């Protein structure tokens, strides 16, 4: 992890941040450390052959999920794409269930049926975890529709990467959000790379990607994601707009991922330089930025900050052990969770044949 960098305090003084207790500020730090340590341990096990498929790491982007989720109230919801571990842990999913899902175990958050890209916790207002690029943006718009329909004062934070902005479903959803005045905050987590293709090589834009919202008459803003306080201060404005005016916003949050598009992305050090990655780690790492602030403000000592990080590491290692020791799903579970009516033994679930093996 990077050494302490010069703390930025401008946004720490914003009312939404000034209102935080020292304990709440420490909690932001703890959550970011937990996400990073969780993923580092997940990577270790991925490389050890403990899991299949993809592993899209969020390392370097932690301040975005933690900052946004920390603003959520009872009727605020969140949905994201396949780089979903950070948002899951941020809303309060447990490391054990999350790690076990990666291992494909019965104890996983989706009982081993979803894998890395498909975490869900609707009890925590977290609606996934979606594998098809941008497919979640219409869903997030629908959650906002549902909130408005039910007369609830809330919003949906709908996340996507910068590579998703060129999918048609995003534009259809933005049109609907503006047309129906839906309380959705669409957040582009811009890590600069659409898989292996840089923003300049994948997207046409005037000044930035979020500006496309202007075409739909939607308010938009670009911000820097390395400072969790900046994320909170400016996402709050968009959430207030959703809550008070029932209007959408598009935010583009500049961030960076240290690793490839997925761990299987063997070329990630070819389409960008080693120096680029090191420079971000040294100067812009969101955990280091927050740590520096907490120490400077004497909210935490360096030793206490390290202790929190070590606790997160221990928790992640324990989650790895839990996942490893958990049983795989039973083949009998193949037919569970396909149909609600079948699972719940209703009359509808009991009429006619639902499965067609022989």
């Amino acid at each position, binding site marked *: 992890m990077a050494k302490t960098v010069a703390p930025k305090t401008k946004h720490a003084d914003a009312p939404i941040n000034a209102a935080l207790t020292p304990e709440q500020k420490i909690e932001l730090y703890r959550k970011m450390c937990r996400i990073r340590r969780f993923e580092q341990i997940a990577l270790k096990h991925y490389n050890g052959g403990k899991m299949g498929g993809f592993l899209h790491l969020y390392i370097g982007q932690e301040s975005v999920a933690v900052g946004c989720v920390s603003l959520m109230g009872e009727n605020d919801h969140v*949905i994201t794409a396949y780089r979903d571990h950070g948002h899951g842990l941020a809303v309060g999913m447990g490391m054990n269930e999350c790690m076990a899902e990666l291992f494909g175990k019965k104890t996983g958050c989706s009982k081993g049926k979803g894998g890395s890209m498909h975490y869900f916790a609707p009890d925590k207002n977290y*609606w996934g975890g*979606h594998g098809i690029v941008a*497919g979640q943006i*219409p*869903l997030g718009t*629908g959650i906002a529709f549902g909130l408005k329909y039910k007369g609830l004062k809330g919003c949906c934070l709908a996340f996507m990467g910068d590579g998703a902005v060129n999918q048609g479903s995003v534009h259809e959803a933005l049109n609907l959000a503006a047309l129906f005045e839906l309380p959705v905050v669409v957040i582009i987590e811009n890590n600069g790379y659409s898989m292996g293709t840089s923003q300049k090589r994948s997207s046409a834009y005037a000044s930035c990607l979020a500006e496309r919202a202007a075409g739909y008459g939607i308010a938009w803003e670009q911000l820097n994601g390395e400072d969790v306080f900046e994320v909170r201060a400016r996402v709050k404005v968009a959430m207030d707009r959703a809550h008070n005016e029932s209007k959408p916003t598009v935010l583009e949050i500049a961030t960076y991922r240290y690793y490839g598009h997925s761990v299987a992305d063997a070329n990630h050090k070819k389409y960008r330089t080693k120096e680029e990655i090191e420079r971000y780690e040294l100067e812009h790492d969101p955990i280091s930025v927050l740590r520096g602030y907490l120490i400077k403000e004497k909210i935490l000592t360096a030793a206490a900050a390290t202790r929190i990080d070590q606790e997160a590491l221990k928790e992640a290692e324990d989650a790895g052990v839990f996942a490893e020791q958990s049983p795989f799903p039973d083949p009998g579970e193949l037919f569970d969770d396909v149909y*609600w009516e079948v699972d719940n033994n209703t009359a509808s679930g009991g009429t*006619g044949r639902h499965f067609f093996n022989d």
Partner: protein
Amino acid sequence: MRRISYRHALREAFDEELTRDPMVVLMGEEVAQYNGAYKVTEGLWNKWGDKRIVDTPISEAGFIGMGVGASMLGIRPVMELMFWSFYTVAWDQIINNAGMVRYMSGGLINCPIVVRGPANGGTGVGATHSHTPENIMASFPGMKCVCPATAYDAKGLMKAAIRDNDPVMFMENTLLYGEEWEVPENSELPDGELFIPLGVADIKLEGTDISFISHGRAVLTCLEAARILKEEHGISAEVVDLRSIRPLDEETIYESVRKTHRAICIDENKPFCGVGAQIASSIQLHCFDELDAPVLRVSSIDSPAFYSPPIEKIQLPYADVIVAKALSIC
């Protein structure tokens, strides 16, 4: 008993469900102020207003996805595709999101959504607007798929589809919207309403010599073929209307075949992996010793939908084709 049209029957189902459950909302292109492209939703916007009857832009991926998202939150959207053929541009939202989210979340989420609209050829609109995707939709575990042939079934099945807690793909037929059938008033029914569970087939005509297994408009073609067989050849055909493709009432099919010992699967799908292929496979597996002849199939002719009306007419199954096939094994 009163006779009402297929579209009127659907409208009654919507109206009754809108009354019963405040979470039911109708959405789609032209469903509200325009009164529906096919007038299925006529008058509902006047009665229920903007909140319950929602016009959407021509944006199927967007608004179907919006409906799926709303359904995850407990809204019960009834989404109209002006043509089911437009499912192609909403594919990811229908299949991956409505169809898979329950499984991938380990059962934490369900989508009580209905996607409905006409799914048929025969109207001179060319291949892009003439798809019959019931076989495709029914091929995904997690999906349900319904194809009513009559006004009676359309009303009863629609009410079941709206109350179902899984995604139901409801396929209607523009050629049937104006046709009338007997549909009882609710006051004439013992339960006070017309409700037909998904997954229950219906014998539309009893017979002893051959079973026609069918769904949707093809059921009516089968009834016509059965009339000809009876009047001109003294052959008694039984017409089994599947009504629901998934869940599927296999027992009713097998009972019929065990009685008649001959079967033809008739549908307006294309032949390759059509619904009839699945049924024929199941019949040979479960009724092999009962069969006196190979199970035959009648499908739409295997080329994209032809525009020219006289050709298009013979591309879809018609009674003479079914009669000829029946005579070949009776």
